[in-house]
Structures are given as structure tokens and as C-alpha cells.
């Protein structure tokens, strides 16, 4: 490879890297900026004052962060575990195609459309404006995804492995703990990650079913943006991006470990 070619390749990689990193770096800078007005290219002063104010009780950022974590973990754990078992039922059912079609319905609708459809029912059930209502609404979408995700996992080979374990004397819990769960670690982890991210970044569905009372991080970002408070919006966005980054890094580390 010629020197020129290598330089071009490195420049291309750096450009692509910057394309991904630039928004994050810009948000980070914005969250520490003070008095950054037009036409300054860089902020005249940086300070942690904004972060100190944002963590204050009245801004609700801590509450929003904790609520987002709670919602996403509940939705991810619920949809992954129920989806894993429901997909098994669907896969081995004689009406597999019909059941699979039903699983696709919430998945093919956008979450906002799903929210609009169930809104009236949720009002009657007293679920609008409650955490439980938002969890159920998000689960409807995430569960459909999890079922579709796991349907291909439950194939003839998995069924035969399950049968082989039972013939050797394994009860149903033993079959799961000693065979099915160990061989499905990676897909389980991947599904958890995907459903967590769906819930974590969910805005429209949370706003419709939450009725503005359930202020998760994405709702706060939109709120700050609507108020033209770009510094607060940047701070909340940074927080919004941190957990997914940590999870992606963790997932990669685990994938490498399992790969070995």
C-alpha cells in the first residue's frame, strides 16, 4: 500500500470518526459553555455552573434520569423474558404464522400511532399519566419486537436439544437453567439491549400515555428545547447518551468474552 493511499485511508477513518463524535463533543461543550453568543466560534467562558444548577431539585433532572433508568430496565427485562418464552410458544404452535402476524402488528405501527390508538382505552382504565401506563404501552411495542427477535431462535435444533436434555432426566427448570439459557445468552443480551434502547429514547409514546406527568429524560430534552434552553437541553442530552454508550461497550466486551 502506498503512503498516499494510507494517508487518504487514515483521513477517511478520522472523518467518519469525527462525524460520529462531533455531535457528542458539541453537546459536551455546550453544557459547559457560558455566555456563548453569536458570532463567537467558541464559548468565552466554561464552567460547571450549569451542571450544578441542573442537578438541583427544582430542575427534575435527577428524577428524570432515575425514572428513565427504572422504566427502561423494567421494559427491557419484561419484554426480553416474556418475549423469549412467548416466542417459543409461537414457534412450536400449529398456527405459527397467524400468531407471528399478530406479533408484528404493534411492531409495524410507529410507537406514536400505537399511543394514539390505545390512549382512549388507557384513559378509561385510569392508566394515563401513570408510570404503570407508560410501562404497559412501551411493553406492547417492545414485546412484539422481542417475540419476532426470538422466533428464529426456537428452531428444530433447539427443540431437539431440549428433548435430548429431558430424555437424560432434566426437568423443565433444569432444561432451561442448564441448556436453553446458557446457549441463548447472546441473543438474550442483544434483545435486552435493543428493548432498553427503545424505551430509553422513547418520547412520543411516553408523552401521549404519560400525559406530560411522566418526565423521562427524552421528555425533558424536548421540554428544554421547546423553551429554547439549549444549555439545559445539551446537559440532558449528554445524560441521555451515557447509559447506551456504557451498555454498548459492555455488550461488546461480553461478545468478545463469549466469542473466546
Amino acid at each position, binding site marked *: 500500500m502506498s503512503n498516499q493511499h494510507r494517508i487518504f485511508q487514515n483521513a477517511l477513518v478520522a472523518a467518519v470518526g469525527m462525524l460520529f463524535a462531533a455531535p457528542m463533543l458539541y453537546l459536551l461543550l455546550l453544557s459547559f459553555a457560558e455566555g456563548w453568543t453569536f458570532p463567537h466560534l467558541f464559548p468565552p467562558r466554561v464552567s460547571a455552573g450549569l451542571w450544578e444548577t441542573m442537578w438541583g431539585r427544582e430542575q427534575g433532572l435527577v428524577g428524570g434520569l432515575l425514572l428513565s433508568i427504572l422504566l427502561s430496565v423494567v421494559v427491557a427485562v419484561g419484554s426480553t423474558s416474556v418475549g423469549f418464552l412467548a416466542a417459543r410458544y409461537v414457534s412450536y404452535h400449529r398456527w405459527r404464522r397467524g400468531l407471528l402476524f399478530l406479533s408484528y402488528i404493534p411492531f409495524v405501527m410507529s410507537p406514536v400511532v400505537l399511543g394514539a390508538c390505545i390512549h382512549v382505552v388507557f384513559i378509561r382504565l385510569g392508566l394515563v399519566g401513570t408510570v404503570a401506563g407508560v410501562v404497559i404501552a412501551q411493553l406492547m411495542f417492545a414485546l412484539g419486537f422481542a417475540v419476532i427477535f426470538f422466533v428464529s431462535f426456537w428452531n428444530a435444533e433447539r427443540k431437539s436439544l431440549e428433548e*435430548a436434555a429431558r430424555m437424560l*432426566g432434566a426437568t423443565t427448570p433444569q432444561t432451561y437453567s442448564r441448556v436453553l439459557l446458557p446457549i441463548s445468552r447472546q441473543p438474550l443480551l442483544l434483545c435486552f439491549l435493543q428493548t432498553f434502547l427503545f424505551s430509553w429514547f422513547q418520547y412520543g409514546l411516553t408523552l401521549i400515555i404519560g400525559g406530560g406527568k411522566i418526565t423521562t429524560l427524552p421528555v425533558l430534552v424536548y421540554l428544554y428545547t421547546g423553551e429554547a434552553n439549549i444549555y439545559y437541553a445539551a446537559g440532558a442530552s449528554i445524560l441521555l447518551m451515557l447509559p447506551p454508550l456504557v451498555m454498548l461497550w459492555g455488550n461488546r466486551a461480553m461478545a468478545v468474552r463469549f466469542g473466546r
Partner: protein
Amino acid sequence: MVLTVQEIGKCFGQQMVLQGVALSVAERQTLSVLGRSGCGKTTLLKIIAGLIAPDSGTVRLHGAEITKKPTEQRNVVYLYQEPLLFPHLTVFENIAFGLRLRRLPNNDLTHRTTRMLEHLELQAHAKKFPHQLSGGQKQRTAFGRAIIIAPDVLLLDEPFSSLDPETRASMQHLFKQLAQEYGIASLFVTHDLKEAILMGDSIGYMEAGKLTTFASRQEFINHPDYGARNEIEFWSSLRQQATNHDHAATV
């Protein structure tokens, strides 16, 4: 009798797969069931193993009815055409799987598994994972995993069909040796006439869901309908020709 099957019938939709099937297997004996693909052999084995429920008939083990007993309580192991080893476990752990479920003391478990590995000549591969093994090694591991728990009956569904002729012959030999040593009764299903004669103490022939059993190998060989006599005569004449050719060349 270790295994007695009476009047088993099974339909899938409109299709009758098994019709009044009856058989019995004595202790330490192997019954070979010969039949073409799709004649109902696999369905019969799965019914005995408890993986499929029959529409009619009974399955008895040592005289006790097990027709409705769950698979894990039968002590009957069905070996598939593919070895189906647990991919996340090593060869050692695959073989020890059934013993771990029975909560055997660790020393005993290690001793028995190591002994089985020696029988199977797999000591050098104990720490390998299934994807690191050859077809024959995988099949041997599957045998060891099944035999180590001393099942009352072993059901074999064309277990050597995916192996090359040489490995197949050595596996047939190994199976006979292990079945003798561990005193296991077995039902061996195959579509290969030679293999059926070689493996079975008695033979059954299955066609369109109906099973005809023969008390001895000789009875089956002498029966004019199944072509066993012709096959033996063909191989004998070929052998004779080869001997004559060798003799002429020597002279």
C-alpha cells in the same frame, strides 16, 4: 421383557402413520427395525421416548405402563440421526450431563465419566467443545452421554447415517461392545439391510406404519419377501469371485 409395545396407532391429520404396532425387546437384546424413509420408524421411537403421544396403544417398561409418563421420568434415551451435543459444554461435561442431574458425588461422577471417555477413546478430547470434534467423535460422545446413565432402553434412529463407511463400521462395532458391556436393551432403526442384520439380535420390518417382527435373524433372512437372502448371496458370490481371482493370480 424390558420393553413391550402394544397396538400403537398414530395419525397426523388424515394420514395414518402407525397402525397396530406391537413389539418387545428382551434384556441385553437389540431389535433392528428396517424400513424405508417415511414408513413411521421415527414416530414409533418418539412415542416410546415420550416425545409424541400415541392415539392408541400402550408402552410398557419392565411390565409397568409408561404411555403417559413424562419423558424425563422414563429412563429411555432416544439418539437422533445427528449427535445433538450441548454446544456450550465440553465433551466431558456433555457425557457427565445426566450424572450431574442425578446429583452424583463429584468423585464418583469424575470416575465414571473418565472411564466412559476411555471406553470411547475420547480422553484426549475431554476438554474440547462439540464444534472442535469430527462427526465420529461427536457421535461417540452422544453415545457416551446416553449410555452413562444406564437407560432401560436405548432408541437409535439411524445414528450412523451421516458417517463415512469406515467410521460407520467402527461405530457399529463400538455400539455392540458398549451395549454388551453395559447390558442395555435397544431398538435400532435403519433403512440399511446390512446394518439391520449386523446390529439386531432380532429383526422387524416396517412398511406403511405396520410392523412385522421376526423372532430371529435367520427367520428374517429366510423370508422370501425382504430380499435378505439375495443380498447375502450377492455378497457371497462377489467374495467367491474375488477369492478365485486371487487364487488364479497366485498360481
